[in-house]
C-alpha cells in the first residue's frame, strides 16, 4: 500500500471502484457540504472535493475534505496549480495529510478568466505533471523537492485527470503515460459521452499496458436535460457530446428528460464495467448529488465493498 486509503484498498482488491464529487459551497456554511455529503455516504469508495472549479471562489477543498471525513466519507482532495505556488502546494499537502486525507488529484485548473475574478494573477509555478512528481517525491522519498528532509512524509494515493477528447488526440495516450511515469497511481477521466472515441483511446492505452500500471476510473456525468447537454457541448472546452447522445435525450418530452439522463448514465456505467482496463467509475453528478444512489445502485454497484 502506498497510502492505505480506502480507494487504494478497494482497487487493490480488484473491485470496480466508485468515486463521486462534491463541489464546496460559495460561502462558509458547512451544512451545505454536509447535506451534499449525506447523498454521497455509503455510495462511493472516495469522494472528490473540487478546488475552486471553473475559477469560481468556493470553500477550500482541504476544509471540504475534513467535513466529509468527519461524516465518515473518504475524501479525495483536488488540487489545482493555478492558485498556489510550490511553497503553498507543499504546505497544503502536508496539512491535508496531517488531517487524514489520503487521496489527491493533481490538476492544472481552468484559466481564471472563466470565474468571478478574471483580473486575478495566475500562478502556474509548476504544472499538473510536475505536481504529481512533487507529491510522489514527498511521499516515497520523504524529502521536499528541494531535497530537505520531511518531518513525516505525506501519505497520498496520487491521482491525475486526463481528457481523452481534447486536441490533439494523438498525444492523449502519451500524456497518460507521462503522468503514470511522473507518479500517478490512478486517473479519473473527463466526462465520457463519446464512447467510440473513448474506446479508441483505451485500446491504445492498453496496447502500451498502461491500464496495468495506473488504475483508470472512467468519468461520467448524468445529463439533466437536452439543454444541459447542448450547453456543455458549446461552453465547456474539451467536452465531446455526440449529436446522437443529445438526440436521445432531446427526443424525450421535457419532464422525462432527467429520468432518461439517469437511465443513459446507468447504461453507460454498465458498459464501462464490462470493459477490460477500466478499474472504476467517477460519477460527477453536478449539483445533482441526490441522484447518486439511484445511479450507482442502478448500475449494480451497491453496496460498496468493505476492504480491510
Amino acid at each position: 500500500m502506498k497510502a492505505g486509503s480506502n480507494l487504494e484498498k478497494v482497487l487493490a482488491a480488484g473491485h470496480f471502484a466508485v468515486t463521486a464529487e462534491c463541489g464546496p459551497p460559495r460561502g462558509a456554511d458547512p451544512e451545505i457540504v454536509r447535506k451534499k455529503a449525506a447523498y454521497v455516504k455509503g455510495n462511493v469508495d472516495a469522494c472528490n472535493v473540487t478546488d475552486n472549479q471553473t475559477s469560481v471562489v468556493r470553500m477550500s477543498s482541504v476544509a471540504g475534505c475534513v467535513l466529509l471525513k468527519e461524516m465518515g466519507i473518504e475524501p479525495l482532495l483536488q488540487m489545482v496549480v493555478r492558485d498556489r505556488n510550490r511553497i503553498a502546494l507543499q504546505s497544503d499537502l502536508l496539512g491535508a495529510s496531517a488531517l487524514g486525507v489520503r487521496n489527491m488529484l493533481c490538476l492544472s485548473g481552468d484559466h481564471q478568466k472563466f470565474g468571478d475574478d478574471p483580473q486575478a494573477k495566475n500562478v502556474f509555478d509548476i504544472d499538473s505533471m510536475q505536481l504529481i512528481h512533487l507529491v510522489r517525491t514527498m511521499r516515497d522519498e520523504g524529502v521536499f523537492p528541494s531535497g530537505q528532509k520531511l518531518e513525516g512524509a505525506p501519505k497520498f494515493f496520487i491521482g491525475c485527470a486526463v481528457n481523452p477528447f481534447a486536441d490533439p488526440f494523438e498525444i492523449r495516450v502519451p500524456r497518460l503515460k507521462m503522468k503514470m511515469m511522473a507518479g500517478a497511481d490512478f486517473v479519473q477521466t473527463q466526462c465520457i459521452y463519446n464512447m467510440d472515441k473513448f474506446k479508441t483511446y483505451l485500446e491504445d492505452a492498453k496496447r502500451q499496458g498502461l491500464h496495468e500500471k495506473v488504475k483508470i476510473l472512467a468519468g461520467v456525468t448524468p445529463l439533466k436535460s437536452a439543454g444541459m447537454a447542448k450547453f456543455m457541448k458549446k461552453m465547456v472546452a474539451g467536452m465531446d457530446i455526440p449529436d446522437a447522445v443529445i438526440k436521445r435525450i432531446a427526443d424525450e418530452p421535457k419532464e422525462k428528460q432527467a429520468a432518461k439522463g439517469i437511465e443513459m448514465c446507468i447504461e453507460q456505467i454498465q458498459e464501462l464495467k464490462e470493459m477490460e482496463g477500466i478499474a472504476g467509475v467517477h460519477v460527477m453528478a453536478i449539483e445533482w448529488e441526490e441522484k447518486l444512489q439511484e445511479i450507482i445502485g442502478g448500475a449494480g454497484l451497491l453496496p460498496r465493498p468493505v476492504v480491510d
Partner: protein
Amino acid sequence: MITGTPKPIEEILEMVDPYDRIVVAGCYGCVTVCRVGGEKEVQVLSSTLRLARETAGKKITIKEVCLERQCDPEYIEQMRSYVHDYQAVLSIACGAGIQFLAEKYTTTPLLPGINTGFLGVTERQGEWAERCQGCGDCVLHLTGGICPVTRCAKSLFHGPCGGSVQGHCEVGKDTPCGWQLIIDRLKALDQMDNYTKLKPYKGWNTSRDGGPRRIVREDMI
C-alpha cells in the same frame, strides 16, 4: 520589440491638466516601429493636446522631441539643456524609457502616454503578438522554437491542458493553443522525443520572481 498601446486621450488630458508647459517625448526605438511612440505620434499627440486645451480655454505650450532611445543615458542627456524650462514630461516611450528619464531628471514629473505591452512581433500590418516573457532561461531548442511560458496561457511545461480544442486555447478562439503549435512543430522536426520527456520544475528566479534583474558584462565594463 517592446510593444505598447496609446493611453486614452481623456486619461492623458487628466494627467497634464495641472501643467501649461510640457515636453512630449518620443523614442526612435521599438515604439517607433510599432507606431505608438515615434516622431509622428509625438506630433499627433501634441496637436491633439493643444487643440483640446485651447477648446477648454486652457492653452498649453508643448515642446516636441523624439530621442534616439530613451533607454540609453547618452540620448537622455540631450534633454538636459531644456527640460527644466518645462513643468513635466509626457513620454510615449516604453515603461523602461519613461523610468530612465525619471531617474535622470529627478525634479521633473514624468507622465506615461502609452501603456507598455509585451515583447512581440508584427504578425501583420497593425497587429502585434507576444512571443517572449524574458524569463531568463530559454528552452526554445526543446520546444520547436515556440515558447511554452509565453504561448501557453498557463505557461505549462507539459501541455496542452484539457482545454485545447481544434488548435485554440480555452481562453478564447482568437488565441492559438501554444502546445498545439509546439506539437505540430516537433512532429515536423521529428523531435517528439522532446515532448514525452519529463521537464524539471522551472526556476522562476531568473524571471521577474527573483526580483528586479540586472545583467553585468565584466568584459564590457
